[in-house]
Each structure stands twice: as structure tokens, then as C-alpha cells.
């Protein structure tokens, strides 16, 4: 059985203050903020960012031999999304990349499957939670990605117990392509989830051979917030709960178990027990015990689960970025469809930035283009001189036009430049060094 070798998270910079929602939609909203993926991000690009962090904590001798990507918001159907992540990470062609697609539960299911293989497996889970303006899922949801690497060797946590329960019931549903899920009235789901979770919890503790008192940290997550809270109360776990980030990031769907488990690994000491309880279309519980390797791992690869810089976002921008408030673009031709053949031929340049994606650069000069087509004008473009002596002119992202300056240090980030004829054009942009 595999243990956890490394972890990494990615939460996009944008934060929507939920109080803005009601001013526009006349309903919905609430307190706190939610995270918002930028207009040039999707679950694939966020997955790349989280995986880059997780891989940075890994010894090169233990590189993964499989990459699994789980999301409830896949960028492509039919075509595998994990292959773009594989390409952006520059992984060996022999590394299998495959999707666990469609449902929130696929995130924790991929972790569980990876534990039970005997090969080093990088599991990436990402999600973008959307809902109609004013809906609960709009304000309750958040966008994020998490990556965990499972394998043998110097593991920082090992699985000591697990349990699952499955039941078919319809607490929420969404047709492919719809921007929002629909929900059954809340009480029904609560009556389904809580008894199942209580049974699974007992079974998980039994399989780990421990009692509730021996749990040091617990992650509880699921689409049904009220059911999750109800379980925590009944199992008397409130004093050990890892902050679910509901007030700052929101519930991040398929990414949530990985995001919160990573936060728990950041908080735990050696030889502590962390339980992850996911209540989505059933219940999945994984119980880990951290090892002596954890503190040293954290000091050699610090901040892998840090939330990073934030920037507040207007509700109008949020709606525009999610396509719910289409904005007039500049009167310029939209980008043409990217050539599949040219993209494959130039895979190294396009997907790994020629192997330079981790190199930092300095802005030599820049300009702001208010004329060119962009899904979110204006385009900020910079000539960047990199530490390795090379120069490239690149688009900037995650920066406001008033905050750019010559001499600023930038890092590269994998983004979706445009979409034409349903083909997404992935490439790298630069952003201020985090």
C-alpha cells in the first residue's frame, strides 16, 4: 500500500466578496469571500499549478509513473484532460495520464485508488464551482486544485484505516454543459448522509484500530454543508476540525478533500492521526498517520499548501469571467483555431515553455494593449529577460495594469490563452512572483 510522498495546492488569486452578490442579484450572497479562477484558468491549468507545487517537494528519484486527474468540471469531454497536465509538467511519455471525470466524488476516489496501487501516482483534483447569479452554490462554492503524490519510500503519512458507504439518492443533479446544479430540498439529503457517515466513521476507526479520541485532525467536506456540520456535531469532532475555508475560499468540490488534507498535513506534527471524511454521493473516509519524515519534508519544501496572494474582484468581473455577463470585446478578429499538428510538434515549447517554466524573469519593458482581442481586455504584455539569459515577450496575468513596472520579477504560470472551435489554447503567461 502507498503512503503520501508530497502535496501541493493552488487557490486562484481572485476573491469575490459575497456581499456584492445581493446588490446585483437581489438574492443570495452571504458573508466572507470565495475564490475565483481567472478568465484564463480552468480546472486543467489550476491542476498544473497544484501539481507543480507537489512535484517541487518530491525527490527526482521518485517521479510518478501515473497521473490521475479528477474534476467535476472537465475542460474537455471525451478527450482526456490529464494529458495537458502531463505535458505541462514535462512528465515522461511512459507515465500514464487519465481522468477520473464528472462527479465531485471522483476526487477522493482517485486518492483511495492511488493508495491501493503499488506505483507512484500523482493525483490531481481540481474544480470550479459555478451557479446561477444569486444561487447558494455560487456563493458557497470556490475554485481550487490540489495534488497529492502517493507512493512508497519516505512517506510523510501512511493510511491506517478507511471506510466507504454508497447509496443512490438524488440530493443534487446537473446535466452535462449546464452552468449550475439543481438541488433537492435540504432536509432530505441530511437524512441520507448523516446515518451513512456515522456507520462509516465507526468502520474507519475500527479498521485503523483507534478511537475517536486518538484523532488529532479531521477534515469534513461535502456538497451538503448542513449534513457535514451535523456529522461533526454528532461525532464530537468540532475541536479537531481543520478549517474548511468556507469563509475565505468556499467549498471547492472535487478539489476539497485534497486541499483540506494538504492543509492538515501542513498543520500536523509527526505521528499524528488525520481523518478525511468526504460526504459526496455516499461517504469516503481515509485515516492517515503522519510519519517522522513530515517535519523535515515541510522544512525542505515549505508552504506547499499556502493560499497565496489574493485580489478582490468585482461581481461584474466575476460574472464576465464565467460567461454569465458577456462583455463586448475589441473589434478585432477572434483568435483562430490552434493547429493540433503544430501543437503536437512544438509540445516542448508550448507545454513546458521549453523547459523554462520554473525560471524567473525580470520585466525589461511592457505595454498595455487596449486594441487587441482578449476575453478580458486590456492585454498587458511584457518583454521579459529570464535568469537563464534568455528573453521572451509574454502576456502578463494576475496583475492590474497600474501595478506593473519595469524591473518587476515574474514567474511563469500555465494558462488558457483562448478557445476557438472548442479547442483550448494552452500556453504560459508571466505573473508577479508570489
Amino acid at each position: 500500500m502507498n503512503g503520501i510522498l508530497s502535496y501541493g495546492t493552488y487557490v486562484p488569486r481572485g476573491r469575490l466578496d459575497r456581499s456584492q452578490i445581493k446588490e446585483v442579484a437581489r438574492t443570495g450572497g452571504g458573508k466572507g469571500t470565495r475564490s475565483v479562477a481567472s478568465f484564463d484558468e480552468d480546472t486543467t491549468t489550476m491542476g498544473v499549478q497544484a501539481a507543480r507545487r507537489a512535484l517541487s517537494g518530491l525527490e527526482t528519484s521518485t517521479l510518478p509513473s501515473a497521473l490521475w486527474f479528477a474534476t467535476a468540471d472537465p475542460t474537455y469531454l471525451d478527450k482526456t484532460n490529464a494529458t495537458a497536465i502531463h505535458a505541462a509538467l514535462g512528465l515522461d511519455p511512459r507515465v500514464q495520464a487519465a481522468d477520473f471525470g464528472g462527479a465531485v466524488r471522483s476526487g477522493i476516489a482517485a486518492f483511495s485508488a492511488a493508495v491501493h496501487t503499488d506505483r507512484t501516482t500523482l493525483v490531481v483534483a481540481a474544480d470550479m464551482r459555478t451557479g446561477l447569479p444569486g444561487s447558494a452554490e455560487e456563493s458557497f462554492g470556490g475554485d481550487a486544485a490540489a495534488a497529492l503524490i502517493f507512493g512508497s519510500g519516505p512517506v510523510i503519512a501512511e493510511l491506517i484505516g478507511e471506510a466507504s458507504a454508497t447509496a443512490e439518492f438524488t440530493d443534487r443533479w446537473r446535466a452535462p454543459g449546464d452552468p449550475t446544479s439543481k438541488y433537492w430540498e435540504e432536509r432530505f439529503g441530511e437524512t441520507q448522509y448523516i446515518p451513512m457517515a456515522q456507520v462509516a466513521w465507526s468502520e474507519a476507526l475500527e479498521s485503523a484500530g483507534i478511537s475517536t479520541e486518538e484523532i488529532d485532525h479531521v477534515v469534513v467536506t461535502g456538497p451538503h454543508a448542513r449534513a457535514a456540520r451535523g456529522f461533526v456535531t454528532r461525532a464530537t469532532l468540532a475541536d479537531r476540525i481543520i478549517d474548511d475555508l468556507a469563509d475565505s475560499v468556499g467549498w471547492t468540490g472535487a478539489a476539497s478533500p485534497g486541499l483540506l488534507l494538504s492543509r492538515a498535513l501542513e498543520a500536523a506534527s509527526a505521528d499524528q492521526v488525520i481523518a478525511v471524511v468526504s460526504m459526496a454521493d455516499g461517504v469516503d473516509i481515509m485515516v492517515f498517520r503522519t510519519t517522522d519524515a513530515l517535519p523535515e519534508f515541510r522544512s525542505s519544501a515549505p508552504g506547499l499548501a499556502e493560499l497565496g496572494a489574493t485580489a478582490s474582484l468585482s461581481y461584474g468581473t466575476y460574472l464576465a469571467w464565467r460567461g454569465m455577463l458577456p462583455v463586448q470585446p475589441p473589434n478585432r478578429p477572434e483568435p483562430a483555431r490552434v493547429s493540433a499538428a503544430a501543437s503536437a510538434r512544438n509540445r516542448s515549447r508550448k507545454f513546458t515553455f521549453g523547459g523554462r517554466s520554473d525560471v524567473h524573469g525580470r520585466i525589461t519593458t511592457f505595454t498595455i494593449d487596449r486594441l487587441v482581442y482578449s476575453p478580458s481586455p486590456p492585454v498587458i504584455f511584457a518583454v521579459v529577460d529570464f535568469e537563464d539569459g534568455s528573453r521572451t515577450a509574454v502576456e502578463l496575468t494576475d496583475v492590474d495594469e497600474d501595478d506593473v513596472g519595469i524591473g518587476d520579477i515574474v514567474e511563469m504560470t500555465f494558462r488558457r490563452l483562448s478557445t476557438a472551435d472548442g479547442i483550448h489554447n494552452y500556453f504560459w503567461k508571466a505573473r508577479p512572483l508570489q
Partner: protein
Amino acid sequence: MSSNGIKGQVAIVGMSCTRFGERFEVGLDELLQEACTEVCESAGVDLADIDAFWFGTAQSAMSGIGLARAIGVGDKPITRLENFCATGSEALRNAAYAVASGAYDVAMAIGGEKVKDGGYQGLNAAPIPGDGTERSLTAAAMYSMLAPAYAEKYGVDLGEMKRVLARIASKNHANGALNPKAQFRKEMSVEKLCAMPNVAGMLSIFDCAGVADGAAAAIVVRAEDASKYTDHPLYIDALSFVAGDGSGLLDPAYDYTTFPEIVRCAADAYAQAGITDPRHELALAEVHDCFTPTELVLMEDLGFAERGTAWKEIQAGSFDRDGDLPVNPDGGLKSFGHPVGASGLRMHYEVWLQLRGEAGERQVDRSRGKALVHNLGGYPGEMVSFVSILRAG
């Protein structure tokens, strides 16, 4: 760079230029017909007397058939060519070599572009299938990077820089106001230009060439035959062309205050023509003012001003119509707009008028008897450059 040139071997014996502008009422065919008819009248020949054609259009037509069908010529060699925004000049260069070689006696260079049928702002190149990693900025944004780079290198305050750029636009608008073929014929004051909002870096729309339809043409023959057509031919003393390899975009030493392709191209042209002091040997220059900072940098790259001094010379009026070296006395791309296939030939058309004393209100002192045409395509760091030197017969 080695080139033998064809100094004095070829003469332009006729030229034409349509009115440039929003020619919604005509298509490319009519523009080409107009340019073709007028150039034949100018040289006193019939269409049947033309042995071969070089037809420049960037993206308004494909192949020689685009011209053949428009002017009703079905039995002649017609080459269609494209070389970015230097397409029109490239037609002239190739036609000149064709007569110089003896392959043909009379050749026509003609260029035209129907930009306004596109329906978008600015110039937009037809997409070539690619991997999606190509830079996708507008030309305005690419050239806008010159202004702060130049200002920083030579210690010019950015407010002052804005006025220098406005001074270039104001000069070209003043010249264009006197030109019946220009698209924009209104004078614009420096103050008014400085108040325009920025659209790309520190450039406003008025720092950019306009968007226009148009066509222009020239007829070339070997120099010894010129007198059969006109008493006042223009002799071609130099034709130079450089296509850069795009390395400026990747070269950390490139500082966005010069165009190395143009420096090389100009040096070759001056060598071909035997010019050592362009500032004082030329009566005028027509240069590629696609954006105001382009003209600023060109003054130094073409050797009209010392490095770091063009901004002062511009403000002193050195390149005004009555200045030491008039630059763009016809109003330039600023006043004409930029129908890509036609612009290079439109520049030569102004030289044709000026050196023959036919420029009317815009006439400059032509006693120096020589002129330069500079036409470029591409972007800072990734550029093609054309320079010709012409001499009054």
C-alpha cells in the same frame, strides 16, 4: 552585406496613385483599374505595351489572376507577391530587376489593398495555422514599446516624449492636409494630439497610421530607353532589402530604440547609390511612419539625425516640409492610411511628383535632386526593410 545594385540602370517613366481612403464604393478590381489606367497615361503607353507585371497585395487577392482579371490582361506574366507592409516596394524592386536583366523591356509594378472590406479595426493578418504560442499583440502595442525605451535611454521626460510624438503626427497631418489623394486632410495641433486617450502604451489612435483602401503603380524601363517615354524620368540608384530573422524578440541586448534591419538596409542602399551624407544629399525622404515612434527611430536608423538627437530635431522642425530634410511631405501613412500592397508605391509616387516639380502646394526644394523611400513590415525585433534611392533625370 554585399549587393551589386543596379545603379542608374533602370528608370521609372510613369506613376499613378489613387485617392486613399474609405473607398466603400469600389472593390480591389476598380482600384487596380484606376491605378493601371493612370500609370499608362503617365508613361504614354497602352496596356498592351507592358511586357510583365509585379502585383503586390498582402491579402486582398491571391495569385496573378487577381490583377489579370481586374485589368483584362490574359496573356502576360503576372507575379503576385507579398512581403508584409513592404509589399508595394517589393513589387517595384522585382519589376526593376526584370527590366535590368533584359528579360523584359517594359514592366509594371502595381500594388493595391482593400482593407476596409474586413470590418475590423486596424490591420489584421490572415491567420496561419500554428501552435497558438505566437505573440498576438496589435502592431500599435508592439511599436508602443519604442517610446518609453527611447525616452529612458536618452533621458527624455515622458511628457516631453508625448509632445515629440505629437509633433511628428502634427507635421504629417499638416502635409496631408495639402494632398488631394490623402485620406485625412485636417491639420492637427500638438495640444489636441496630446489630449487623446491612450490605446496602446502611451500611443493614442492619432499616433497610428489610418486604415484605408488604395492602389498605386509604376512603369519601369531600362535607363537607355527612358527618353522614349518622358523627358523627366526617375533613375533608380539603389534598391535594398533586408528580411530580419526575428532574433530581436529573443535577444536580451535588443533595447527597442533602433531597428537593426533598417540600419543594415540603409547602409546597403547608401553604398549602392554612393551616398555618404544622406541628411544633406537628399531633397526629401518618404518613410514608413506606421506609428509616430517608428518615424522617430527611423530618423536615426536612416542616418538623418545622430543617435539620441532625433527627438530634438523633430521639435526644431528639421524634417518639416520647409526643414533641412523634408520627411513625408505627402502626409505619410499618418494621412494616407495603409493599404499594405499600395503604400510602398504611394511613397515612390510622392518622390515622382517632388523630383519632377509637380507637387504643387507641397513642393519642396528639389535642387539636391535625390530622394529616399523607406518602407518596412513587421515589428520591432522582427522586421523586413526596404530602402530605395531615386534621382531626377
